[in-house]
């Protein structure tokens, strides 16, 4: 294999903690009896439920209609009867309208679900429509509607698609297993994205701690024109959009800009596989691979879970909690969201369910900044986190803004390394929110 190993500047090395699940094959989760499907699983406008209590639905049937361009339709993951349409707590941390469906355990597939034919025979516009209609969003966690990325603002010349297979978040192995078990889907999804954008160059970036995945994807991509598999140094946050682009192409997304500004569209390997699946079978995005792991679960697993299944049900299939759980996280430990309850559904962006033990979850006590500079050294955006944080804590948001607070990607590297255990990102987030508010106010003036 002739593969380049690339990386970005800065970053840190949290323990990988992937041993528990990296060798475990993806298993199909038990069919849930009830699913609660949130009408907002993505960044952007929520969907409107187009089914009502009492309606019968089938697998793949559209149940949520997007109410804006930056949005993605939502489909039923089971067949059965709608029993409620009501606001419920979801894994984003707030309450949103959910369509609750009681499954009839038949998994009857909806009539609209039909294979879309060969990729060669599909036009760019047809591919875009398939992606849009299948409700495909970024599956790495951010859940940005994919079809929006495929419609760059006029004047932006795109030339490259980068697929994120870095999976730099510790603990998570969902993408790793996917690349290993379905490398052809990943490559096909990338080809589809490239065709949809009429782009000639595609990269798939994978961290070197997954040599088997690199090999599998490399072999699958052999003979496919324009696709290069690149090995990325195992370093956090290698999979962050701007860092990934920088590592693969050497280009830098300008401050405040978008990847499209430098001709790049980034997607995730999970997203690519979902696109391939939508083309091959016609099935929209109704299930995803989730890594359930951490000291707090008895038998960690990689499960293929239907969207809307509750965290609790999924954790129970992994032998339940191991001792008293301290923290339940939707996603990985660096950027995931801590949950108030396990009565929340798995959504399109749920890459993992991580349960930390009480001991691991205990919050460290912050002490004085000792000016060690470690946060400066790891910041992938070359910011000075302790200055940003100090200004934010003193309500000096303008100062924080001139120190480029808005460039912070909230990767958490600074908080992770800080020996004084200062909650740096927390305070920077506050500053960002304040700065955004101010900008909005100024605009409306």
């Amino acid at each position, binding site marked *: 294999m002739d593969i380049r190993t690339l990386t970005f500047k800065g970053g840190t090395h949290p323990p990988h903690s992937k041993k528990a699940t990296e060798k475990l094959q993806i298993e199909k989760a038990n069919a849930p009896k009830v699913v609660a499907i949130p009408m907002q699983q993505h960044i952007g406008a929520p969907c409107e439920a187009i089914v009502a209590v009492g309606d019968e639905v089938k697998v793949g049937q559209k149940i949520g209609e997007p109410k804006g361009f930056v949005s993605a339709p939502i489909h039923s993951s089971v067949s059965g009867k709608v029993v409620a349409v009501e606001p419920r707590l979801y894994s984003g941390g707030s309450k949103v309208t959910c369509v609750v469906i009681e499954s009839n355990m038949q998994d009857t597939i909806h009539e609209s679900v039909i294979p879309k034919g060969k990729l060669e025979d599909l036009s760019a516009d047809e591919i875009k429509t398939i992606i849009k209609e299948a409700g495909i969003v970024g599956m790495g966690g951010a859940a940005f509607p994919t079809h929006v990325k495929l419609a760059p603002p006029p004047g932006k010349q795109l030339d490259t698609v980068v697929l994120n297979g870095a999976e730099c978040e510790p603990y998570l192995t969902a993408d790793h297993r996917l690349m290993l078990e379905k490398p052809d889907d990943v490559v096909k999804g990338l080809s589809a994205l490239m065709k949809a954008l009429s782009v000639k160059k595609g990269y798939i970036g994978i961290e070197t701690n997954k040599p088997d995945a690199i090999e599998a994807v490399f072999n699958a991509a052999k003979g496919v024109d324009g696709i290069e598999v690149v090995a990325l140094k195992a370093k956090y946050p290698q999979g962050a959009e701007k860092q990934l682009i920088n590592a693969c192409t050497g280009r830098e997304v*300008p401050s405040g800009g978008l990847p499209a500004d430098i001709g790049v569209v980034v997607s995730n390997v999970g997203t690519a596989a979902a696109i391939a699946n939508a083309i091959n079978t016609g099935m929209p995005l109704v299930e995803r691979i989730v890594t359930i792991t951490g000291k707090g679960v008895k038998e960690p697993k990689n499960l293929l879970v239907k969207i809307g299944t509750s965290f609790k049900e999924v954790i129970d299939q992994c032998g339940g909690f191991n001792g008293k759980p*301290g923290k339940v996280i939707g996603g990985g430990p660096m950027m995931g969201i801590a949950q*108030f309850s396990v009565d929340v559904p798995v959504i399109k962006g749920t890459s993992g369910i991580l349960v930390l033990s009480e001991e691991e979850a205990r919050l460290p006590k912050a*002490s*004085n900044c000792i000016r060690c500079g470690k946060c400066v050294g790891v910041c992938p*955006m070359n*910011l000075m986190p302790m200055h940003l944080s100090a200004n934010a804590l003193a309500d000096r948001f303008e100062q924080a803004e001139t120190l480029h607070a808005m460039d912070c990607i909230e990767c958490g590297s600074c908080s992770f390394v800080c020996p004084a255990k200062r909650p740096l990102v927390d305070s920077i987030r506050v500053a960002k929110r304040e700065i955004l508010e101010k900008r909005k106010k100024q605009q409306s003036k």
Partner: protein
Amino acid sequence: MENTNYIVSSSPHIRSGESTNLIMRDVIIALIPALISGIYFFGFKALTVTALAIITCIATEMAMQKLLGREVTVKDLSAAVTGMLLAFNMPASAPWWMVIIGSIFAIAIVKQLFGGLGHNFINPALAARAVLLASWPVRMTTWPVPGMADAATGATPLAILKEGINYVNGLPVAAGGEMAGQALPNIWNLFIGNVGGCIGETSVLALAIGGAYLLYRGVINIRIPAIYILTVGILAFVFGKFDINYFIYHVCAGGLFLGAIFMATDYSTSPMTVKGQIVMGIGCGLLTFVIRFWGGYPEGVSYSILLMNVATPLIDRFTMPRKFGEVKKSA
């Protein structure tokens, strides 16, 4: 609803194993070889001075924090490090009251009054040493001769060297000044620390071992110490008219290793940016040599570092890293 008493906090949910306490512990471990060498060459008094400084620093920190209504944080070991460094910058013959005054000044005035750990703008141990040196210059520069702890007559190699170097029968001696003709200690003794000087500054060997440990543990970065020592070395070589002995004495004596490895790298008082650390190293080296060569003092390490400490906030401001994706101005 079932039990929902999970801890909910914002990301990241894991933290590295590093802590302030561990870093300070590593610094203490790194200082132990130099302490051993100090005790070996200057006798038991070196140990009592060091112990007294540590105890006084810790006690002062506790008292000050109680007084100021702050949380008592002596467990972070930073006061112990200050005590150790202060003692290392004093002669083993220093009287007990001087040790106590220095320790109290370092912690109470320089550290706590400016806000505690991380907020002091100059190195507490060095500031205290400067005050002691100004107040009791004789006692602070009366060096015990190694092996004879109480015979207070030793001269430091750099004091002998102050007026340049001469050769008598091929051996280096002082070229001028009061000590004209006095022989310089041999280089092996200089390397292992068997020469006059402060408790912890004489043994290049022991300090280098400590420095290697700190580098290995990632506590310090090599930039400041290496550039500092190199700058002094190059200047000494050039201005010493390429005399190899002159070069060696300037690099190995006068507390350069202690200062470069343990004090110019002090987090609170040195720059955080890469470029800033380079500036710090060069600045310290330049100042040290200027003081030694043209100034009134034979040494110069402590004053140079103190001066650079004062400049640190400025250095940090002007050496901020280029932000990722920042468009270069006037490209």
